[in-house]
């Protein structure tokens, strides 16, 4: 069973969001997503300063099995990216909710956070996918 931390919000496309409380959020992909993808070999991150839409393609993660888009769960501007992933994409496999974070967004519409799932709802999604 995948790890689904309670304090985070989740998107159906398997991104997690942590509200930093200062109008910004940190985004990554869930433990479940990294398990599905397998060993990651490459991460393509957005540019700092780029504007993103909720649900818009923001990054690409590439594993030995597939290359997948990562969608931004909220709209806003990218204010930081985890450059360390360029050399060590496997960090996402090892610590998806911590050192494996991907980018931070200054939200333009903070209310979009309320539309995301909590841990319980996301757990239901994963379980329904597994059955």
């Amino acid at each position, binding site marked *: 069973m995948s790890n689904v931390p309670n304090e985070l919000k989740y998107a159906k496309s398997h991104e997690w969001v942590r509200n930093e409380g200062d109008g910004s959020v940190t985004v990554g992909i869930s433990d479940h997503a990294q398990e599905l993808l397998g060993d990651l*070999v*490459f991460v*393509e991150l957005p*540019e700092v300063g780029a504007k993103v839409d909720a649900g818009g393609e923001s990054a*690409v993660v*590439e594993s030995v099995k*597939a*290359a997948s*888009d990562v969608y931004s769960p909220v709209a806003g501007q990218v204010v930081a990216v985890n450059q360390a992933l360029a050399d060590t994409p496997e960090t996402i496999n090892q610590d998806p909710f911590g050192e494996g974070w991907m980018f931070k967004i200054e939200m333009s519409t903070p209310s979009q956070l309320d539309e995301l799932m909590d841990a319980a709802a996301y757990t239901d999604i994963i379980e329904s996918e597994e059955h």
Partner: protein
Amino acid sequence: MPFIPHTEQEIREMLDTIGVNAIEDLFDEIPPGLRCGELERVPPALSEMEVGQLMGRRAREDGQPVCFIGAGAYDHHIPAAVWQLTTRGEFYSAYTPYQAEASQGTLQLVYEYQSMMTALTAMDVSNASLYDGASALAEAVLMAVRFNRKSKSRRVLIPRSVHPAYRRVVHNIVRNQGIELVELAYDPVGGHIDPALLEPYSGQDITALVIPQPNFFGVLEEVDALTDWAHANKALAIGVVNPLALSVLTPPGEWGEQGADICCGEGQPLGAPLSSGGPYFGFMCCRRALVRQMPGRIIGRTLDLDGKTGYSLTLQAREQHIRRSKATSNICTNQGLMVTAATIHMALLGSEGLARVAAACHANTAGLVARLSCIEGVEPLFDRPVFHERVFCLPVAANSLLRSLAAHNVLGGFDLARDYPELGSAILVCATEKRSDEEMNAFADKLERVIGMQAGAPCQLQPKDW
């Protein structure tokens, strides 16, 4: 690996399984008006003997002219072993198989090809080929625009000294993708891109600069200065190169301070016959940092569980069967058979052999230039060094002159009138290593006679002292 089509019985079983009477029924949903129906103009079948005779007749109509045309495709000697080996059944499929690891021989060949190309270009990585030089340049432009995300302009500088057909193909492929191609004029004296001509663009947002070496006129460009200019202006440097010339010229990976970012070109000089224009193949190499944006695949050498050497697809994640709409290219089908020939050709010649061919081409062209320059009214154009081609201005119309020479079994050069009308009556002439002294003397004699007839006597030009 054999590719065996289905038997009649298997087809019948499949149709029965899905409950369909005939294959034709599967196309029912296409409106009849959209179906082409029977082909009406296809002649009745010929026997193998008849086809052989017909093709023999057609080939004789082409004659066996002596070729002094280059302009992107070159009449080089190809050792007999190249196509003897290339056409072996094991190689004789144009496609890299999708179950790639089952075809270790194909993978080893591509691995060796990629190793040779990176050695020749001094770049970090090579893909497994593209359709031709022109589409390879278009892919290089798209790749540069994808990679250079700091540049917002999507403006690419492309000199008029780049092959005109390449420029047309690049335009066709990128014009609807929000990419602006800016043509750079060449220096009328040198026939090259004077780095000083780039000054108006300094400090502007330029995504990439295309650098031909040699350029379409055969002229060598100042590749170091152009590459450094590109990098100083945060643009990528894209080299369009003749692979044979790289055996004697500085390879793109060593241009300027940092080297070119991408290089591409036409692979035909490496073992592909002229064949009326194809099939040829395009090649593409790049710096390691750009590898995720390069269309195609990379083969790696590794060890299997038993410690034996094996080959595998090391990078293919951005190909169309994996990334679909996000693929780096949807025309990255490679020219596997041409690549096979090129790999065998390069292996047979080696770096020393390639350099000797290149030097022989250069020497022959220099000898031809000396001969043709002696003819009244025939003037070599552009004063910069050339590789194995040279532009000549003529005292008579180029097209009728070339027709007359063809009647004498000589293909005397490429008419530049359509693409470079500002040059007046001018032709681009090439002498590869295959051209003998006898052939070059005969060409000069015939050229002089044809000009004499077409210009009419008396000649209005001053006689030359020679």
